């Protein structure tokens, strides 16, 4: 059996797991495979990395078994573990037993559970809060198109505590002008604007690609979050109106879907 170069990456929310993986892949010559365990049906990091990192193949969990049977020899495999995955009870396939364990932690934190588990501790970013009982809320939004002005208002409210204490929030949203946008918030870090994902402008009906949101925090008013997102979503006839505008203003070479 060919030996695989596998790295498991763990750490608390917002510490910089995905960023660290991205740096490794960018600085290495070989191609890389990325697998995210624990993201369920909201593959935000996978979608982000797949569009933003050249030479990276994102592997859906469902394809792991097939992949291990016939791995891409010579490529590095990064497995990102969600913060909510219990490391002590995690059982991985035999082929993955011989791997490197990396944990990305904010500076000057004990986080003994992760330290004990890891072969290598990487100092990540200093986050503004460490919740003892972080709660995870997620929603798939695929097919929804949001009004950007509304989304900006919602994102401001969400990340400033209007719906509970938020430690980490990230999302991928399709907006009215056809773009797919990546939003990323970590409490205590400088606020950033969204990133436009390198995907074609969607201008034919409801987008048939992933979008969704993930929020980690405390005392989250999930119902209000869901309701507000719903209020940001556009109706079919409005989507059609904007998509016609996109089509009318296309320049040669614009990528559309």
């Amino acid at each position, binding site marked *: 059996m060919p030996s695989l170069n596998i790295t498991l990456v763990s750490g608390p929310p917002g510490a910089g797991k995905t960023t660290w993986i991205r740096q490794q892949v960018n600085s290495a010559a070989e191609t890389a495979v990325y697998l995210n365990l624990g993201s369920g049906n909201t593959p935000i990091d996978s979608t982000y990395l797949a569009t933003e990192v050249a030479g990276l193949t994102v592997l859906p969990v469902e394809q792991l078994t097939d992949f291990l049977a016939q791995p891409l020899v010579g490529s590095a495999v990064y497995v990102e573990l969600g913060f909510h995955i219990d490391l002590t009870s995690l059982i991985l396939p035999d082929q993955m037993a011989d791997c490197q364990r990396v944990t990305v932690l904010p500076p000057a934190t004990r986080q003994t559970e992760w330290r004990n588990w890891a072969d290598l501790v990487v100092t990540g970013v200093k986050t503004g809060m460490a919740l003892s009982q972080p709660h995870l809320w997620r929603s798939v939004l695929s097919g929804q198109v949001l*009004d950007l*002005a*509304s989304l900006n*208002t*919602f994102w401001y*409210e969400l990340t400033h505590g*209007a719906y509970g204490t938020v430690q980490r929030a990230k999302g991928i949203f399709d907006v009215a002008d056809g773009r797919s946008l990546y939003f990323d918030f970590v409490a205590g870090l400088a606020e950033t604007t969204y990133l436009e994902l390198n995907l074609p402008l969607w201008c034919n009906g409801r987008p048939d690609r992933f979008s969704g949101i993930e929020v980690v925090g405390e005392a989250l*008013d999930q119902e*209000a979050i869901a309701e*507000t997102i719903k*209020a*940001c979503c*556009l109706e079919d006839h*409005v989507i059609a109106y904007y998509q016609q505008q996109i089509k009318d203003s296309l320049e040669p070479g614009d990528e559309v879907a």
Partner: protein
Amino acid sequence: MKIAVMSCIHGNYEALNAVLSDIDDHNVDKIYCLGDLVGYGPHPNAVVEMIRALDIPTCQGCWDEDIVEGLNACECSYPSVLAEKRGKLAHEWTNQVIYPEVRQYLAQLPLSLRDDNLCFVHGSPHNQHEYLLPEVDAFVAMERVLTTGADILFCGHTHVPYVRSLDASQMQIRVKLADKSEQETSFSAPLKRIVNAGSVGEPRHGRPNATYVIYDANTDQITLREVEYDYEKTCAAIIEKGLPPIFAWRLARGMEFAERADDPTHVCER
């Protein structure tokens, strides 16, 4: 003569009370109100009853009109679909709780008021829904004042208080756009001013405090007042009355109830 001018109370009874007692401390001769008595806030009836009890001359605001006429604001006056949905929720709630006599009172409010060389409107002399933001083009601003024939135009609606002086040089450029008769008056017109009274009940200056203005005609002095009040009482009432809790969160941060309206160029063409 000394007057106090306030606007945009938006059903915030606590803020109104605080402003009225601040006005009391300043020995004014008369109070004017520029409308938006209702909308978003939890006490629309109490606010109207107070204004009526004190016999405060009031012009009709955009929200007052919408409560009478049915939701009539053009869609483009909302900056986003989220703001529009929140605005509609507030409208429906207000529409349900408002007393018939309050509605009647709002229906008969005039669009503008005059007092000697002063004119009072809600949004602009053209329309209750038009925003006269401080950065509005100087020609447009001057045109709005000139149509009233007044020297000082008091307005509200933007929820941000300001004083803007328009001088003769701007006027001279302005007359090229006007017809002959206006040309004459324009040249001889003295300095004109636009005074925005801000908002008593729904500030958007980043603090929850109420704002209004005092104008002293003897000294020709305009003072912008910012008044602290127990906004947490209003926030509690918002939640207790079943209005969206996000209104309370935003009010406490001086961010308006739903979302700021910020298209300075938009003129509703209804």
